[in-house]
């Protein structure tokens, strides 16, 4: 422990932390824009500068480690004045397009400007003519909003992608999409989560969805497992709050007919995927088997590692599967034609926007899912319609496709798919005798988790990975050590998805994840196979191989550069 002083406040703190980290832990506000704990400090925005007694000049608090006996001042006249100038200069490059921004209503830049009384329009925006790029009809990159922090470039490299590059054009360095034919975007959206100025955003289909509702179409919403523990953040709930009934009531208020739970789709995926796994392991074929519910990961394999396409499980992702059921099973029951149903998935994800455009997913010429809204986009839609989830009375989800086991809920966190499939594998192979239900070895923040699970005679070697760079590491180093590998592109899985509310941090992702496991711990039905809805769907509809294939399975193919 070391002793330091910040603005006269004496603190005893752990060694090895930066001044900014310590200040935040102790509720001392130091402003900053370019700092994000998931990337290395770049010390570029120059808003977090502090004075340190005995050291010449000002120093960034994000890049300076606290040492014993440091006396730090964060609010000298010099700091306050120059900070204002730097904020003004940042605004002078950034074009404000607040209404469409992922930071709308929680923008740090604007908050600082108001608080410090900084005029944000003193100069003409330097980037006013900078272009906008669209990647895969999933992610928009509006370079006129960029404040040159390069978090996006670092996070894209951390993913092992490196699609976003810094290039000098004329007098200035810019972030540009790579022209390298061997690099392409996988639409994970981590650039969206880590950009402090809203330069990256999901491509938002809200207006079209509103139009469909207005036209009187039969609009159905389904929400992903990870939404329930994050959407509350947009309405002032604590991190990790479970907000389901209020969200359903909100969606219904928009004029939506039915609201279903993608976790049910996850239960069905679990059952099919476990079948496929058992078959492959028994036959020793196409191993290791990879999960394929994460479309950014699928695109990664299709573009960067096409030789591994056969290793992907061919089961569709949960919302595609459930969307297909809505347009067949549900449509039949309700006597509505598939073409009159509009399915909207609410996802923590940007790459799902890309996924739904895949031709091969169509059933009888119809898309399984018509639109994808991110968690944040749904919240924005609520705000627009003056729907406040903190004030609304909750409603139950629609029964038919609304009930899932808790194994389908943990799909939202890294390790959840593997755990759910393993539970089912036990259930099937050991004839419903469950010896173990909690697979804690698959859970937690660690980026690569490994475990060996003995199911009867079968020894299943499992790896659980989040972050594409880590997947790449396994692929290139010890692929043959495993039979089953779960890969999620985003940190901690979907709870850290590119479509989730901003800000994001390790702590926030962990709280979202913990909330899902809490649901699981308290649930009565914790195995997909025991979900009565699932049993009924197999009884009534998924009765033979042909229909199961049609609804639940797909194919993957090598991809060329798209952006």
């Amino acid at each position, binding site marked *: 422990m070391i002793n330091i002083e910040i603005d006269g406040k004496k603190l005893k703190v752990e060694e090895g932390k930066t001044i900014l980290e310590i200040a935040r832990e102790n509720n001392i506000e130091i402003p900053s824009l370019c700092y994000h704990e998931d990337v290395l400090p770049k010390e*570029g925005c120059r808003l977090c500068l502090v004075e340190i007694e005995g050291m010449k000049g000002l120093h960034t608090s994000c890049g300076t480690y606290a040492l014993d006996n440091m006396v730090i001042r964060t609010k000298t006249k010099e700091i306050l004045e120059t900070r204002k100038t730097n904020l003004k200069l940042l605004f002078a490059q950034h074009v404000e397009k607040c209404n469409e921004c992922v930071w709308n209503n929680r923008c740090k830049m604007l908050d600082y400007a108001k608080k410090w009384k900084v005029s944000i329009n*003193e100069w003409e925006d330097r980037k006013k003519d900078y272009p906008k790029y669209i990647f895969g009809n999933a992610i928009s990159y509006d370079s006129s909003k960029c404040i040159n922090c390069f978090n996006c470039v670092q996070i894209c490299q951390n993913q092992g992608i490196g699609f976003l590059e810094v290039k000098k054009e004329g007098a200035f360095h810019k972030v540009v999409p790579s022209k390298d034919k061997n690099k392409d975007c996988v639409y994970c959206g981590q650039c969206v989560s880590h950009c402090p100025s809203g330069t990256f955003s999901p491509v938002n289909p809200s207006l079209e969805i509103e139009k469909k509702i207005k036209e009187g179409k039969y609009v159905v919403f389904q929400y992903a497992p990870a939404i329930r523990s994050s959407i509350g953040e947009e309405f002032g709930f604590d991190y990790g709050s479970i907000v389901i009934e209020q969200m359903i009531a909100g969606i219904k208020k928009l004029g939506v007919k039915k609201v279903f739970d993608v976790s049910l789709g996850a239960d069905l995926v679990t059952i099919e995927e476990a079948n496929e796994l058992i078959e492959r392991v028994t036959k020793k074929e196409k191993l290791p088997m990879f999960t394929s519910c994460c479309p950014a990961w699928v695109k990664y394999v299709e573009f960067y590692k096409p030789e591994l396409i056969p290793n992907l499980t061919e089961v569709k992702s949960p919302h595609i599967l459930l969307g297909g059921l809505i347009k067949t099973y549900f449509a039949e029951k309700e006597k509505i034609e598939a073409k009159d149903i509009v399915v909207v998935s609410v996802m923590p994800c940007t790459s799902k926007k890309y996924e739904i455009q895949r031709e091969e997913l169509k059933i009888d010429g119809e898309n399984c899912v018509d639109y994808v809204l991110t968690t944040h986009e749904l919240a924005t839609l609520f705000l627009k319609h003056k729907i406040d989830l903190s004030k609304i009375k909750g409603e139950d989800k629609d029964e038919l496709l609304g009930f899932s086991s808790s194994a389908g809920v943990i799909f939202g966190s890294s390790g959840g798919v593997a755990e759910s499939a393993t539970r089912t594998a036990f259930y099937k192979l050991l004839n419903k005798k469950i010896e173990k239900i909690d697979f804690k070895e698959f859970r937690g923040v660690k980026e690569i988790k490994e475990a060996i699970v003995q199911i009867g005679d079968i020894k299943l070697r499992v790896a659980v990975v989040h972050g594409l760079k880590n997947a790449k590491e396994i692929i290139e180093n010890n692929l043959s050590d495993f039979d089953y590998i779960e890969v999620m592109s985003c940190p901690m899985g979907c709870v850290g998805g590119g479509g989730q509310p901003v800000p994001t941090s390790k702590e926030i992702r962990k709280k979202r994840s913990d909330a899902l496991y809490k649901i699981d711990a308290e649930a009565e039905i914790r195995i997909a196979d025991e979900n009565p809805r699932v049993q009924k769907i197999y009884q009534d509809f998924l009765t033979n191989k042909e229909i199961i294939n049609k609804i639940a399975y797909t194919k993957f193919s090598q991809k060329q550069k798209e952006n």
Partner: protein
Amino acid sequence: MNIIEKLKKAELKGRGGAGFPTYLKWESVLKEKSDLKYIICNAAEGELDLKKDKYILENYLDEVLNGIKIALETIDNSLAYIYLNKEYYSLIKDKVRDPKITLIQEEGGYIGGEETVAINVIEGKNPEPRKRPPFVSQKGLFQKPTLVNNVETFYYVSKIEKGEYEQERFYMLVGESIKGGVYELKEKMTIREILKETNNYPKEPFYVQAGGGVCGEIFLEEEFDQEIIGEGFIRVITYNEDPFKIMERWAEFLNSQNCDKCTPCREGIYRILEMVKNRNLKGIEEIFLALEKTSFCALGRGAPTSFRSLINKVILK
């Protein structure tokens, strides 16, 4: 007497502009414990109009290489790089054959000469400055102790080793009204003496910029009786020249050559350029302050010096 003692006795100071005693730099690298150490000869020379190192490489390459060899012999288990301005690279690439010396082309323009930028470029990284500490003498290139000296410094190391050093240095003089050029003259000469001795003293009224390239201060005629501190560079400017045009050239240069890493330098210099072009300096002092106090590296912190002294001493007078 070993070379360190010779350097100390000769009182040689680094000729890259900062003026740090050379023997101290050498000593600090020597005292570090490491299986490998590096030597970098900095020939990035990116200052506006400055071609002093080019002149030395063209005329005295053997002396420079000898200076580097002396460093290689003095520092055990060391390897050397010559980090070269792109134009200079082609000039000497066929003339250096020592297996212990590698030539590298500079990147990053003006700021490419900053020693931590040089290290990043040699390592194949982005041309951006690094934070100190650690100092490069402790953890420099590839995290090894590294000695970085300018071309001119290595030239004089060679001279000192041979006992031929006579307290001289190189000066470069430029200006529309003078012949100009590179001159090797005594170290402790005043601005007036340098201009007079080299026949570069215009008849019409003039002032100079000296000591720091594009960031060098302005000196009026009554201030000519002082030595140049910093870079051996003098720009002669007559009162017939438009001072705004001069500033425009500085600002254009800085705006296109800086690394864009930090807000005050990237955006502040752009706004200075805009103000100078519009001949409206309202609010410029606020930007100067942000640059001086909050820039990441010395180049941004030093950028206002020349503008401010030209404005105060010439424009506002």
